[in-house]
């Protein structure tokens, strides 16, 4: 980033009369704006469309399919509608806090993208405390949610806000404890260093480094879902009990900001999981050496891996019912936290026992992962067979709107 701006100043494209920090500031604003409007907001929006399509197919429906090809422009239509709606502030609400809350939530979410890599050299700032920064800045969301819950002056909002605070603060612990083994393995907090410490081959990913990290991966994913207020942990906005939780009193654009943060957070979760456990943007060295081609391939690799986990989160949401508050707390404190501690100690012991890693164990874990996927695929076909479906009742085209035959 800085080199780019320095280059621009030297080449005379930027007026040299101004002090350098002005150039840096303008460059940061422009680049931040580009990333927010070209990448983050469309990703959050398109994820709503993906979610509704996937939900539709899981429930044997079609989902939105009228706005644009396969309903793809639905997210734009919804966004414009929300922008044009009346922005209501309840009379009894604490107006300044009420108005500020969505921006705090949005800041916590967009702030995470500062340290999240996009592929190869593409990263806004490769902070040397990268993953620590990401966990810290995403925890800012809880301040905004608590603010929204309190200032709405509504019992549902307040309950939602408090539940969210309890949930996010609790699940920070297993999430943090599952990040530690990775930090120990790569010896760095910087996102790029963590990725570079892994290889492009799946068996050289952190995920398969040792059995403890393998378990830590699942703990991290569950804890991250809980932090992102996703079903089955969407207690803060449980529709059936709390109407919409902390967002009950919000309308129009402010409501949209909450939901944008929620769906955008899915991508953040996917990107962090990909960075920590799944080899990030590493692609085989055999691929073409042209820097632009490589960067595009690395971007595609990282994006697809991240977006796969967005899909998994959506899929999980439409599979599991919401759990109770006490179950959520039991799961965190009695299961995830102790196991995460075991993982931390186990990884430390493993690193002492095998300072250079254990390739045989990595390969065995990789094969175990493949076997688990195979068993899973067999279960899927088992359920399909048990439903007694004919070939005409199946459709592998995700955008298909064809009904079962008459």
């Amino acid at each position: 980033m800085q080199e780019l701006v320095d280059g621009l100043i030297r080449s005379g494209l930027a007026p040299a009369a101004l002090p350098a920090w002005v150039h840096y500031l303008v460059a940061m604003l422009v680049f931040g704006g580009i990333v927010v409007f070209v990448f983050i907001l469309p990703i959050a929006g398109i994820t709503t469309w993906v979610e509704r399509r996937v939900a539709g197919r899981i429930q044997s429906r079609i989902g939105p399919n009228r706005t644009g090809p396969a309903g793809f422009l639905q997210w734009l239509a919804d966004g414009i509608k929300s922008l044009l709606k009346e922005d209501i502030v309840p009379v009894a609400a604490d107006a300044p806090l009420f108005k500020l809350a969505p921006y705090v939530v949005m800041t916590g979410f967009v702030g995470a993208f500062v340290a999240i890599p996009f592929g190869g050299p593409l990263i806004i700032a490769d902070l040397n405390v990268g993953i620590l920064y990401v966990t810290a800045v995403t925890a800012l969301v809880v301040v905004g949610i608590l603010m929204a819950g309190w200032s709405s002056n509504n019992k549902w909002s307040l309950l939602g806000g408090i539940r969210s605070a309890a949930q996010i603060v609790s699940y920070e612990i297993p999430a943090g404890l599952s990040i530690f083994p990775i930090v120990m393995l790569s010896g760095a907090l910087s996102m790029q260093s963590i990725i570079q410490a892994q290889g492009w081959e799946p068996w050289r990913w952190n995920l398969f480094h040792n059995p403890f990290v393998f378990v830590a991966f699942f703990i991290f994913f569950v804890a991250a879902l809980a932090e992102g207020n996703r079903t089955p942990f969407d207690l803060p906005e449980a529709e059936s009990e709390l109407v919409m939780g902390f967002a009950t009193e919000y309308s129009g654009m402010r409501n949209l900001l909450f939901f944008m943060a929620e769906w955008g957070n899915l991508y953040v979760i996917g990107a962090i999981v990909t960075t920590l456990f799944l080899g990030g943007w590493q692609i085989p060295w055999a691929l073409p050496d042209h820097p632009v081609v490589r960067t595009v391939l690395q971007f595609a690799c990282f994006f697809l891996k991240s977006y796969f986990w967005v899909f998994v989160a959506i899929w999980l949401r439409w599979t599991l019912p919401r759990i109770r508050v006490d179950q959520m707390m039991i799961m965190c404190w009695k299961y995830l936290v102790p196991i995460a501690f075991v993982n931390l100690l186990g990884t430390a012991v493993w690193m002492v026992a095998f300072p250079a890693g254990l390739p045989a164990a990595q390969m065995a874990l990789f094969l175990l992962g493949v076997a688990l996927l195979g068993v899973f695929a067999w279960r899927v076909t088992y359920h399909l067979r048990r439903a007694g479906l004919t070939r005409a009742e199946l459709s592998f085209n995700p955008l298909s709107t064809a009904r079962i035959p008459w």
Partner: protein
Amino acid sequence: MGFGTYLRNIKDAALTIADGMAVTFSHLVRRPYTVQYPDRLPDGVRVQDTLPFRYRGILEVDLEICTACLACERACPIDCIVIDAEKDKAAGGLVMTRFDIDLAKCMYCGLCSEPCPTGAIHHTPEFEGADYSLESMVRRFVKAPVVAYKPKKGGETDPEIAPILERGMRYVEEFASPDAPAGK
């Protein structure tokens, strides 16, 4: 809680979640059941013809076989049926001057079609009831005063009424009776 239970809980959670996800994934590759109303149907197919058995659409009355017994009016929980019938010696029985069903009020519960002795009042598969005013949603079936139907001993002989009555009785048996088999 012993350590064995603890481990079993973890195992159960992992296996049931994984199997649940296998179920939902198997749904992802099935075709949707949605009927895209009204413009994505195959040529010549009306949605009304594809509706399942016992679909409760807009009510209809066959005045030819209505006995003016008022059973439906009494059965209606929200009084959307209004019938005016008077004894008229000259005409030879009950004469109906009014049989109105207010579709704006009707909640399609089907309670009126169950007590009907001849199946005169019944649901149709029609459901497109949108209109521009509440007034026009009141269906007035009696255009001119009409003599109520009287069941004849030994079955209906009038060739015009007989098929209507036969259909009405079939409706009562198959559709409106709670003991009827739920299928065709």
